[in-house]
């Protein structure tokens, strides 16, 4: 008997723990319920409704009527639309090509510093200048009359006065330049690099691998998933650019730096809600196509 109770008692204890967990299963849902509501109402719901809304007249007052692809047809005949798409594509692709790889390279080189130096360098490097404040700074530098860049162009390089942000031809280049100059190491790349065991590099060295060889065969492949994700978000993000060009140029001169999102904002301000949504859906389709092409061309992990 005594032996029996001794065997049974722990069993019941385990059972109560198990029962307790199943009985309290609803508690798990309390953890996720608020997030589900927010993600539904401000995430999925408006995204899906956008497609429906783009097919209606979406008037500010009066009845909503279904108009088929009328909004899209109207946008297709608007010469400002292809112009905005052209600006967006040039701006997006050029800024990715010119600025995407520098943070990876910088992070790899930063790992070569002795730990204390690296710490100091990183703190200095990550000192944030907010994006909005930096637009004020760049506007000042680009000023045609007294900006630092004009001084460099005329007095140092001996060029004729430059138009900078008021040059229809070059304005996009000048908007991308800050990204090239202000390079820094990416936080995620550093985290990824720190996870690589030292022994990999030692083994590579025994095999006779040099500086570039180690980067090419160890650092970069190990960073590949992070690079892949960052590239994906860069494509999605840079084609939706609004803040920087809006504060720098308001889309000028003559729309030479007006991105699709800026044009959407103009349409919205003019009460053309249906057209604006249709334009958003068009941009959405373009981004999705580019993302798809990228995923077909580049694999996140070639070994899988």
């Amino acid at each position, binding site marked *: 008997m005594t032996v029996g109770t001794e065997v049974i008692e722990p069993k019941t204890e385990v059972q109560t723990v198990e029962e307790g967990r199943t009985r*309290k299963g609803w*508690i*798990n*849902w309390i*953890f*996720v319920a*608020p*997030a589900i509501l927010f993600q539904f109402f*401000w995430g*999925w*719901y*408006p*995204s899906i409704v956008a497609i429906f809304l783009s097919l209606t007249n979406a*008037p500010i007052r009066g009845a*909503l009527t279904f108009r088929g692809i009328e909004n899209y047809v109207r946008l297709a005949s608007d010469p400002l639309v292809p112009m905005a798409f052209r600006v967006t594509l040039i701006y997006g692709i050029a800024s990715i090509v010119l600025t995407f790889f520098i943070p990876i390279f*910088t992070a790899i080189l930063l*790992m*070569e510093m*002795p730990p204390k130096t690296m710490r100091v*360098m990183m703190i*200095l*490097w990550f*000192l*944030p*200048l*907010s994006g*909005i*404040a*930096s637009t*004020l*700074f760049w*506007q*000042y530098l680009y000023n045609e*009359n*007294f900006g630092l860049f004009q*001084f460099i162009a005329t007095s140092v390089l001996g060029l004729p006065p430059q138009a900078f942000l008021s040059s229809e031809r070059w304005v996009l280049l000048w908007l991308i330049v800050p990204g090239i100059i202000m390079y*820094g190491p990416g*936080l995620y790349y550093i*985290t*990824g690099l720190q996870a690589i065991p030292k022994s990999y*590099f030692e083994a590579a*060295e025994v095999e006779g691998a*040099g*500086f570039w060889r*180690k*980067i090419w065969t160890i650092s970069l492949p190990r960073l590949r*998933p992070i690079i892949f994700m960052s590239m994906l*978000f860069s494509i*999605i993000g840079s084609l*939706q650019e*609004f*803040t920087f060009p809006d*504060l720098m*140029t*308001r889309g000028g001169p003559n729309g030479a730096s007006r991105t699709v999102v800026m044009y959407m*904002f103009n349409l919205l301000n003019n009460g053309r809600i249906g057209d604006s*949504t249709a334009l*958003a*859906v068009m*941009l959405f389709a373009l981004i999705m196509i580019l993302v798809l092409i990228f995923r077909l061309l580049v694999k996140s992990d070639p070994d899988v």
Partner: protein
Amino acid sequence: MSLFPTVGRKQASVRISWWLVVAFLVLGIFLHLVPFYIMISTSIKPASEAMAMPPTLWPKEPTFVAWKLVFNLSDIAKSVLPQPLSRYFLNSVIMTFGTMLLSIPVTSMAAYAVSKLLKGRTANNLFVFFIGTLMLPGIVSLIPSFLLTRNFPFPLPVAPNIPGTATPFPTLRIWNTYWAVILPAGFSAGNFLLFKGYFDSIPDSIINAARVDGGSEFNIFRRIILPMSVPVYAVVAYFTFGGTWDSYLWPLVVIQDSSIAPLTLAIRRITDAFGAAGTTNPLTAIGASAGITDLVNQGLSWNGLMVLGLLQALPTFIFFIITREYLLKGVKIQGLK
């Protein structure tokens, strides 16, 4: 220190290339610090020197006139800035901290549940539900979200009528209030990933041990998981702060009254008025020119804009100083082989 050979470090070629790497990094840091220097030095120049050609490296006679004037901007030129600067600052603070207080608990608890509490297919489906929107360009939901703030729960310009009657459905309007910025940011898919990556790295055995000791799930989360997860909370707090403090397009769409507008919109107004970059909208330039003349006469030009920029950048800067120790510890990226 793993790219350079461990033997033969004293060789001239290795030493030269090492110093080249150092030079490259120092150049990058130098470039990164240049804006701070130029903004600070310009902010203490007199108005005329801030627009002098050639630009001066350091003001001949440092003065804090711009700093004083910026705080009274609305008194001098109401057409440029209808509200005192402190009002915009306070609005930004309310929106930023409101967003943090709502979004961080909501997002982290969901990430914890998906990471540790729910299992199998439920967890997988919820995971996709939560991060799926990351892959959608946010712009597609901009206008329906804007309409949602006007006629919640209808993402339409006008709420539909109740069938069979001429009265429209009752709706909730948060447009043009602080809530219009705070509520839509209640859940963040990007932060969800950061939280989940971190919680995944916490061993299940710790949670199971606490369960055996009789802790409720809430207590386990509060007493055990939270203290262990300070780094990831610091990182997310820093990102959320920086993101909301700098948010621009969304407030531009949902905030109309200048009395509740954040600092970023005030900066938009002022750059509009100054007609910066030589690409002015002629109408606004004429409308504001009187105010601008007043300002320049009083000694405020680009020195004032730099003060404004520094004031706008300062809170993010302070937040970085507070959270800097955690930035690397808090990011745990999963799926690294």
